[in-house]
């Protein structure tokens, strides 16, 4: 057992439909798990299961040799989650939203400023979050990934709403994260080109 993240014999039912069964994967530092499949094939459910938000019918996820629910807080501090609902408050501006994130994760203000700089979000900082376009909101969500200093990134449809430059940015950030020894689990219905050791899971 050298792998950092592994899924063992996973099975998930939704109603009377079996989304997947006997699903296994093992992921190590610097590797990407790419989940593909059509809409409704269970990509999001699989990701929620890996993050521990959803219980599998059978099977379990391990992180660092331990079942995640046995050491859930440690796992959570190593994890950051991105999904189509970005989880920022529409009434608060970008800076206030990020301040909350960094307080939860004990980041310094310098780091927050550096992340805003890196994603070129500076012109948007004083606007209420709900005034931003969907694409801009997704860019802000990327800021959380960088702030979190987590080894495992779980990203549900990281490319939606983003323009060409935004999609390239996401690919670049993922590559960088993997090159630095991080892990990434991403689900998407579109093919992407990321130069890193990639495992694929295709859901029917």
């Amino acid at each position, binding site marked *: 057992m050298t792998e950092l993240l592994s899924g063992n014999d996973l099975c998930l039912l939704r109603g009377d439909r079996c989304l997947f069964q006997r699903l296994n994967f093992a992921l190590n530092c610097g590797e990407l798990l790419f989940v593909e499949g059509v809409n409704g094939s269970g990509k999001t459910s699989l990701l929620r299961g890996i*993050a*521990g*938000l*959803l*219980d599998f019918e059978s099977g379990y996820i391990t992180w*660092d040799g331990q079942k995640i629910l046995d050491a859930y*807080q440690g796992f*959570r*501090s*190593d*994890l*950051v*989650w991105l*999904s*189509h*609902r*970005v*989880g*920022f*408050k*529409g*009434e*608060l501006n970008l800076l*206030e939203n990020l*301040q*909350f*994130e960094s*307080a*939860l*994760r*004990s980041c310094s203000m310098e780091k927050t400023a550096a992340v805003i700089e890196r994603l070129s979000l500076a012109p948007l900082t004083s606007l*209420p979050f709900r005034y931003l376009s969907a694409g801009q909101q997704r860019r802000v969500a990327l800021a*959380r990934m960088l702030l979190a*200093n987590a*080894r495992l990134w779980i990203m549900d449809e990281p490319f939606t709403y983003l323009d060409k430059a935004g999609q390239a940015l996401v690919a670049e950030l993922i590559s960088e*994260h993997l090159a*630095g*020894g*991080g892990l990434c689990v991403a689900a998407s219905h579109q093919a992407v080109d990321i130069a890193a050791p990639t495992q694929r899971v295709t859901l029917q």
Partner: protein
Amino acid sequence: MSGQDRQLPGLMEGFIAIVRRDLLLAWKRPGDVLNPLFFFAMVASLFPLAAAPSPEQLMLNGPGVVWVAALLATLLSLNSLFLSDFEDGSLDQIILSPQPLPLLGLGKAAAHWLLSGLPLVLVSPLIAVSYRMPADIVGVMMLTLALGTVSLSLLGAIGAALTVGLNRGNALLSLLIMPLAMPVLIFGARTVSLAATGDPYAAGIYFLAAYCMLALTLAPFATAAALKISNE
């Protein structure tokens, strides 16, 4: 990026962060705070107009009416406690944050009390005037309301967490919370009545304080468990 140099975030930091965020949100959306308070003030101040206008009658009914109005106003504001977090995905992020979930649930309940319970306590002396309550009773009423609303916010957070994923969870929330809120209502109103008639009332205050402590220690864990279930 290695796991060794990672510092676990401070607990107090996370607690303050979530309280601060909720207060900031309320500041930008003042209607959510003012509505329950307005409801409380309306019910409690309309009652003397509709009831028999004899001063003794008012003195007798006052504590009960104030307490029922306070309970209903709190229930009114509980429904939205986790709703917007659930809808915009913040709840996922809160559950997946490195902070312990009971602590963040406690933070949400604390912010709820600061925004609904505390204003109620502060407004209640004005209501007391319309029931011709003597000044020394007003202090007792404020103390019971303060202890009671803390318990209600904490217990209410459990119900709000359980019903957050449901459509029209409001009625269910009230039903779930009612049995737990009954002791608060009974002891709260009765303590004020006893004080008004000059009887010893300390036991009621002790009970409310004990109930409040019980809620403070147990409710955050129940809230956290309920949030995990509702968010599946």
